[in-house]
């Protein structure tokens, strides 16, 4: 059983804007009956202002597909084409108060139908045509690489399962799963190299004295206050190359969490502010 939000249930039971606009100014059709869901969106648009005056839908699909379609029509009415074009599947899902993960593809279908309708208004055929450069990855549901990559990008998808939830790709025979895996890997590797790494300040090699005082400063500023807040304290005992020896005091003594504190607070702060090679060791007496 699916646990749908109240909004999904409401829009499924009493969908708004069901039907078809006669002589529409724009039509968007996505999906087909074999895939298990399909949406036909018709729009009335004011040619002067480019404002969407009316929107109607017809949907073949489950409750969330019907609710997503209805939500979409409600969201775009009164908006200009340019405003509507900025609506994403996330916006549709949010409007619905969320969708079960396995049903996210319903919101994607809404977004695609809108895009197809806008493209149609601007002169494209009303059925989304696959252009030459795209490649069908999932044969069961006719999902292209372009659609998959877009879903990965816009929804920050990391696993094949997530891609299936959002696009249905891989949800049939499952043969294309390795290919989806590859697309994910390629996409995120590319993103990684694209990332503008903040220019790291060229660190001057510290003298031993500078290094010791920087460690002391960091302990005073970043670490000790946090420990004191819990009634504990820390003492710097010695520094040997990259090894820093400390002793816990106060309530830290005998606290079973000192191991975590040592790594998650003391060592990580010293790594952050002094040197990434630093290792901290606790001295117990």
């Amino acid at each position: 059983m699916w646990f749908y939000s109240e909004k999904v249930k409401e829009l499924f039971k009493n969908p708004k804007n069901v039907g078809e606009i006669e002589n529409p100014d724009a039509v968007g059709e996505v999906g087909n009956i074999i895939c298990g869901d399909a949406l036909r969106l018709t729009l009335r648009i004011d040619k002067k202002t480019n404002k969407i005056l009316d929107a109607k839908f017809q949907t073949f699909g489950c409750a969330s597909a019907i609710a997503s379609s209805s939500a979409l029509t409600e969201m775009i009415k009164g908006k200009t084409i340019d405003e509507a074009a900025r609506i994403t599947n996330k916006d549709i899902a949010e409007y619905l108060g969320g969708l079960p993960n396995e049903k996210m593809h319903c919101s994607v279908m809404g977004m695609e139908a809108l895009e197809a309708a806008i493209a149609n208004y601007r002169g494209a055929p009303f059925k989304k045509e696959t252009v030459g450069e795209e490649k069908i990855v999932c044969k069961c549901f006719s999902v292209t690489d372009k659609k998959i990559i877009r879903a990965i990008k816009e929804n920050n998808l990391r696993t094949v399962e997530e891609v299936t939830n959002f696009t249905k790709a891989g949800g049939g025979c499952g043969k294309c799963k390795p290919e989806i895996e590859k697309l994910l890997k390629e996409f995120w590797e590319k993103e990684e190299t694209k990332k503008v790494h903040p220019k790291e300040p060229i660190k001057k090699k510290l003298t031993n004295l500078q290094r010791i005082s920087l460690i002391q400063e960091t302990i005073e500023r970043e670490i000790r206050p946090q420990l004191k807040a819990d009634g504990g304290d820390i003492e710097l005992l010695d520094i040997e190359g990259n090894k820093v020896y400390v002793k816990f005091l106060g309530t830290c003594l005998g606290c079973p969490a000192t191991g975590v504190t040592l790594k998650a607070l003391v060592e990580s702060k010293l790594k952050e502010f002094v040197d990434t090679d630093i290792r901290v060791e606790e001295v117990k007496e």
Partner: protein
Amino acid sequence: MKKVIYVDNNATTKVAPEVFEAMKPFLTDEYGNPSSMHTFGGKVAKYIEQAREAIADLLGASDPSEIIFTSGGTESDNTAIMSTLRSYPDKKHIITTKVEHSAVLNLCHYLETIGYRVTYLGVNSEGLIDINELKSAIDQDTAVISIMYANNETGVIFPIEEIAEIARIRGVVFHTDAVQAVGKIPFKLTELPVDLLSLSGHKLHAPKGIGALYVRKGTRFTPLVIGGHQEHGRRGGTENVAGIVGLGVACQLAKQAMGEERTRIKALRDKLERAILEKIPHTRINGHPQYRLPNTTNIGFEFIEGEAILLMLDEKGICASSGSACTSGSLTPSHVLKAMGVPFTFIQGSIRFSLSRYNSEEDIDYIIKNLPPIIARLREISPYGKERVS
């Protein structure tokens, strides 16, 4: 409370009040362990044996010792197949069908990954296998044939007598998953050469968590659940006494209902089916019209999707189920309907109604009254079916 019309009895059934009453003592005062030496525990054993007799009686088995209690249909299926494979370690081939329950199907998929060869027999548009295909699939290496007695989704009944006879002549162990059939149609295992047969309590008004496996005398057996000496060493683990007692009573009740009740349920099913086909256009029955369980009908509604139908029915308090992709979360529709080649315009909109002896004529009339507007409404929302099926 909201009205509930429960017509999803192939999924699970209501525990019969008589069953519940019979179980109660074993969940309260009579909590002894039947294996104990003291009278307090030991006396419980006789109720287990009575239940065993009731099951053997419903199945028409020659001896109660042929019944082993399990935790349910899945364990029975797993035990039957694994036991046979372990008893014939040199044979590495299994024959089954494409329309089995996942308890058999997924086990077979797993067995393929550890070196077994599996033949999955296809079915025709009425859901029946080709006997000649079965015959030619059997070879020297075949350890077990596992074919369901009746399909859970469509209710289609397989020609088990014929299949069992072929297996017997060829000397191959035959298992049938009869989870959907036991309690719904009569059995006489003394005349049906089945070696192993699975049944599940909660499909025949006993609780969940209890089932049984019939093992014909003379069938090689290696236990799946290894533990204590219970069930004569064939299934370890302290007996689910209350469940076993409940299953025994459920089998007695099922036997009593096998006559007139069965006819009444079939008449209700037929009435529902006829009315739907008559009142709603673009509708079809999935499965063989005659070789079917008396309580089941699987109806395809063209141009609409099953989950939406189920939720609309749910609003009216009607509990049914669907083989549509959206209901399972798997994105692909039922493997049974796909194997039958149900047309793509129907497959997503296929709904199963499965009745029990607790359904009344009023229930059926209520469905007949409420279903047509739901279908009409969803077809209004659908872009298909208006001279524009693309």
